[in-house]
């Protein structure tokens, strides 16, 4: 019998949160991010003003999404580019696959794009006999391991150099002796360079779609995005429709904020703007330029008055980095394209509330995510709203609904509440005195699995108050 996503999550979460080696690796990675991030923040004079500005930019863009998308499209087409609007994952994959097949593409080089993960583009291309090379080092590594990215910005942060060296030896070149990151990068560079120059098609994502200039903005540190969009004959951009921003000058604040939140840098090393195929007179560049605008559930979010702002996300990864749940279960446990707080909020909208509501409950609602989001998405409150939506859709267990109906009755009747509390304490004291703590008879057995039992005073506060008539 196949498991539900919720059951799988619970199982994986239990395993991962007890895995102290994993915890140590993630903690070190996050400590490194924390100190870099702080340095990055220090470069921005007024961080709150920056967040406010970014929120305003995205709000303007999303609130006039159709206008800005059309403005973007018009210019791309005027320069000889193509724009394809894909209603869902299947349409997007079919378009790219058919295009590649028609153009005789045998090899594709890809720079990082979470949307291509979302629509499962690589498997679709590979089924058509096309070889796909992930060129971002982290993506390259997880591709070799045949696993999804662990984190939307640093896909291989769960691995240490020893594991990566072993992987390279097994999959690439048995002659790789060193596990020094410098040597491992050099090995990856050697192999991927061949791919860059052999591939007929480069596929990239987009960090932003700039409406007034009609260009795609792509940020990378490695230069792989640059090579994917310069060398091969054909360039395809796969992007969500929500990536739009109104003006080129918005990048003056968005680029530094994205880099600061993502890695702590002042700006990503290569902040590229591409508006079309190679123009007459240009030295090089692709002959064809295609932009695939993917909806796949995003337009539905526009109608949600509470959660439209979830479309403001610039995919920086800051919420993943600060989330204590993420730090303890890791990116793979979520089982979704987008993990972490943004993933938990967004996935029910993209992939169904029934199947993925559990992610909205897998949070202590600490609010750290909302406090760091550079576009001020109220993430933890959206988790709360998802929980309410799940309940109102009747998607919760009937036993739980009964518990809260009983709870409500007790809370509206103070004497029942007091009696209930007293009975619970008495029952627990009896159970514990019989040595049955942790057994099936112990209602607190889940608590007692990891903690010593709660104190069980003989008198509640209200009983004491009543007795002493408020004197103590």
């Amino acid at each position, binding site marked *: 019998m196949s498991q539900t996503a919720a059951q799988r999550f619970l199982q994986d979460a239990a395993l991962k*949160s007890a895995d102290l080696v994993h915890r140590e690796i993630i903690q070190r990675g996050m400590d490194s991010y924390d100190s870099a991030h702080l340095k990055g923040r220090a470069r921005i004079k007024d961080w709150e003003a920056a967040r406010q500005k970014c929120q305003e930019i995205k709000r303007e863009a999303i609130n006039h999404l159709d206008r800005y998308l059309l403005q973007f499209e018009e210019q791309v087409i005027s320069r000889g580019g193509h724009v394809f609007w894909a209603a869902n994952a299947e349409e997007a994959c079919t378009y790219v696959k058919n295009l590649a097949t028609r153009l005789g593409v045998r090899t594709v080089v890809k720079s990082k794009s979470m949307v291509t993960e979302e629509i499962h583009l690589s498997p679709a291309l590979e089924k058509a006999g096309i070889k796909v090379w992930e060129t971002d080092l982290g993506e390259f590594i997880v591709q070799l391991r045949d696993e999804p990215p662990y984190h939307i910005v640093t896909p291989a942060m769960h691995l240490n150099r020893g594991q990566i060296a072993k992987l390279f030896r097994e999959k690439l070149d048995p002659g790789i002796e060193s596990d020094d990151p410098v040597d491992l990068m050099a090995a990856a560079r050697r192999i991927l360079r061949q791919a860059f120059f052999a591939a007929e098609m480069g596929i990239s994502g987009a960090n932003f779609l700039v409406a007034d200039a009609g260009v795609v903005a792509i940020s990378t540190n490695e230069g792989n995005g640059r090579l994917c969009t310069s060398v091969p004959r054909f360039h395809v951009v796969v992007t969500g429709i929500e990536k739009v921003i109104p003006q080129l000058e918005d990048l003056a604040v968005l680029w530094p904020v994205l880099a600061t939140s993502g890695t702590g840098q002042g700006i990503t090393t290569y902040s590229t703007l591409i508006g079309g195929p190679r123009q007459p007179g240009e030295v090089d560049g692709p002959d064809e330029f295609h932009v695939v605008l993917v909806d796949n559930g995003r337009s539905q979010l526009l109608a949600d008055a509470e959660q439209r702002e979830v479309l403001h996300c610039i995919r920086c990864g800051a919420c993943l980095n600060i989330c*204590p749940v993420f730090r303890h*279960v890791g990116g793979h446990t979520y089982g979704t394209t987008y993990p972490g707080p943004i993933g938990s909020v967004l996935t029910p909208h993209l992939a169904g509330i029934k199947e993925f509501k559990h992610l909205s409950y*897998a949070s202590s*609602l600490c609010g750290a995510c909302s406090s760091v989001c550079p576009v001020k998405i109220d993430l933890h409150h959206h988790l709360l709203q998802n929980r309410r939506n799940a309940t109102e859709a009747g998607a919760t267990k009937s036993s739980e609904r009964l518990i809260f109906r009983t709870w409500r009755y007790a809370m509206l009747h*103070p004497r029942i509440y007091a009696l209930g509390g007293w009975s619970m304490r008495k029952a627990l004291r009896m159970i514990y005195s019989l040595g049955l703590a942790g057994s099936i008879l112990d209602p607190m057995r889940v*608590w007692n699995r*990891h903690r010593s039992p709660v104190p069980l005073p003989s008198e*509640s506060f209200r009983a004491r108050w009543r007795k002493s008539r408020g004197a103590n």
Partner: protein
Amino acid sequence: MPHQMLVPRKVSLFVPCFVDQLLPEVAVDTVKVLRRVGYAVEFPADQTCCGQPAFNTGYWNEARPCAEHFVRVFKHAEAVVCPSGSCVTMVRKFYPELLAASPLREDAIAVASRTFELSEFLVKVAAVTQVGAAFPHSVTYHASCHGLRELHLRDEPLQLLRQVDGLKLIEMVRSDECCGFGGTFAAKFPDISAAMGDSKAESVAASGAEFVTATDPSCLLHLQGILSKRHAPTRTIYLASILAQQSLAQEKP
């Protein structure tokens, strides 16, 4: 936050349900501290719960009547003081939304504006940081999430702790990282909750402090369970319980 409100001489105590049942000393000490700084304290006996457990689990229709009951109970209070940042967050931050369509909406907004967590009441409303406490021990501070991020309590608890005679305040690493309790989260995702508590216990241990305190006794209940299971020497103590301690010289005969 209405800075200009008249300083009340009487406060109504709101005791979170789990404090009432499991940690009555938290409420007892809260009362002690409030009296010591010159307030009469009344305890409306009809109070039950702020509604947070149902609300946080998505059962807003069940939480709503509970919230209305709270509003009725505290409608005439000059000020409501509560030893829990998460319960105060429920009232101040969420009652206006939860009761938006209720006939008690206006009352709810009014009560919400007069409901305070203990440390913010002492520092911002009563304008005191020196409460005549003595606690000659090393203490580290866990910044409970609701107090920190919803009520914006960054400094108030620390201001109070710094005035305690003999208290040595030690900073812990990642003091603002969630302890992992999260209410129903601990019941639904016990392994993650415990792992987060474990990491917090590590930070506490690394600080070397004898005690760890916070503005939320629920955090401390969860942490104490974990610390005891690990046989760790650090003990949890709620903020008011520290402030309630007086030096022998100050104790009235």
